[in-house]
């Protein structure tokens, strides 16, 4: 559902009006760049690393004490893990960004969708970060900060080279279009 193809740029004239009500998150003439699928692997691994031991511990306890009720939390946690495993790849597929001439678009979410438009001139600083886990999967995240704390403009799951390129590009564009507050 979120991986619907962007409308063909040939329908350019009515740039401000998306064609269908289901497409407010598909502005015209925007080419989205998806994030790396390795982000899904990274997130799945972290789910497995956190919830796996919990399930194993609960199952072990249930087997050892022969307490039947202990199977219930074990099952709940296992279901949570399964739900996460099903959801995460789709979520990651829904995340994308697009660089336009004057602003950066970031899109995410399946159930609760959001689209953020950050003008380059409004950027105060850019963070590039990669934890030990993300480094292992060769991904990094780029976060844009404006003067507003509610601007939730972070792009997770970028290949490091792309993250560095994006950072430099954002910095140079921000400088070119710098505005005060």
């Amino acid at each position, binding site marked *: 559902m979120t991986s619907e193809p962007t409308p063909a740029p040939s329908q350019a004239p009515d740039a401000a009006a998306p064609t269908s009500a289901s497409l*407010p*998150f598909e502005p015209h003439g925007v080419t989205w760049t998806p994030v790396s699928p390795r982000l899904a692997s990274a997130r799945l691994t972290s789910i497995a690393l956190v919830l796996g031991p919990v399930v194993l511990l609960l199952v072990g306890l249930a087997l050892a004490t022969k307490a039947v009720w202990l199977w219930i939390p074990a099952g709940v946690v296992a279901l949570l893990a399964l739900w996460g495993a099903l959801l995460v790849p789709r979520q990651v597929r829904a995340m994308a960004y697009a660089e336009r001439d004057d602003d950066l678009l970031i899109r995410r979410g399946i159930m*609760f969708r959001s689209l953020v438009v950050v003008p380059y001139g409004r950027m105060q600083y850019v963070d590039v970060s990669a934890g030990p886990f993300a480094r292992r999967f060769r991904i990094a995240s780029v976060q844009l900060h404006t003067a507003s704390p*509610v601007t939730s403009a972070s792009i997770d799951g970028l290949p490091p080279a792309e993250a560095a390129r994006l950072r430099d590009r954002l910095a140079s564009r921000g400088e070119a279009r710098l505005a005060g507050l």
Partner: protein
Amino acid sequence: MSTVVHDEHVPEEAWRRVHPVTPALKGWKTLVAVVVIAGYQAADDVRSAADLLGGPGWLIALGIVLLVALIGWGYAAIAWRHMRFAVTDEAVHLHSGVLFRTQRQARLDRLQAVDVVQPLLARLVGLAELRLEVAGGSGSAVQLAYLREPDAQALRSELLALAAGLRRPSSAAATTPSAVTAAVGTPVTTRPEPAAGPGDAPAVGTTPGTGQHGTAGEAVLADGTVGDTRAAEIPAAQTPVASSSATLPLPPAFEEAPEQEVYAVPMPRLLAATLRSATVVGLVVLVVVAVVSAVWSRDVGILAVLFPAFVGFGGALWGRVNAGASFRAAVSPDGIRLRHGLTEQRAQTVPPGRVQAVRLTQPLWWRRSDWWRVEINVAGYGTSEDAKRATVLHPVATRDEAATALWLVLPDLGVADPRALVDAALSGVGDEGGFTPAPRQARWVDPIAWRRHGVRVTRTALVARSGRLVRQVDVVPHERTQSLGLEQGPLQRRLGLASFVVHSTPGPVSPRVDHLDGRVAAALLDEQAERARTARAAARAEQWMRERS
């Protein structure tokens, strides 16, 4: 601590200290804190505390209190020795700290607001604290405490004049202070009238020389670089202004820019409005519940619950009255001036173009009197408890005053009939006043207030309307938009709706338009991004007196 490179620009004689009485005033806080903590502890176990104080214990207690007071004052005195500040043409430098030293440099062209705060104790001895807000989130303010009150006022005028782009006269020019005064003072006489649109403003300037200063702020949006206007900084004065060597401090170089009062809040109205608030409603409900349950259970002890409630609610009410008492707003070339406070008095100056967003709210119980509360976002004030007092533009406004307050922030609403727009925004529903309302499907997600959700985009600002029980109107000038967003939940998607969000700096206003038609919201996002970009490109310089021309 090694000196920073920037310090080379600050001549040694430019450094100043705060008033020597400061440690005495600040030391009290330590003592009060200790006494309060000890009081809480003693209250837990009154009997043993009484036993202790009955014997020779009270001597020990007194000794401890004295010791703490001495330590507090001693530390404050050392801190005072280590604190010094300097004002140059470009920035305010502040060095402070005893163990961990900080050197803070606040650039004046990033100045967001200047407040003179007088707590009760400081006011009694004629001192005041000066707070400079720069846009750096909470804790970024430069606090100069305490200065003699006239000094604080003079320093405020100086900072505002420097931030506005006026230059300190060089020592040569200082021999003709009248010229300088003329340069700083003239803008004042040419304040635009409330009704003045952008086209009218230039006509208000009395002479060609002075017109450039005061009123041009509202009108001149021409492009051009700031750099080449340096030569014409003070055209009226014709003084030989030294552009680089003018860093010598000349104490009263700038006169306070005169102001004109716009509105004042009468005390009876403030009291009436405070009594008709959610706090009082909650208190009444609590009293009724307590009395009913006391009667029901025949246990008068339940009423004891009311005592802490009265204390708490009373404190909240007192806080509101205290903050809003003798609230006055005025306009000056330096921007909006706000004065308020009963025990702690605060005089705020928010320069032009520093207000990021405005919110007008009307709770249900203010509906009959048609009162409104007007709040603003100013970068730097943040969202702390203290900031909640600073971000009020009008604690309780009539409809006319609310419109005036909005005019203070946004002199040009970008429509032919601003008053009609304000009326439609404040109490209209549906598509009244040219608003784009939420479609009918929105009633499934917001059955009560769906007719009030709406947005109107004018040439200069975005006006978002919402709330039926608590009416709410948010106004954001296009050039103050930080970033934009679009949000959609599963239910909204089913109904073809989406919410449009405007991200503003931290503060009480967080503008958003809920449940718009999906296509409308998407188009709005696109157009608004474009409009914000155009408005930013045309926006005035940060230094509001030094217009691009």
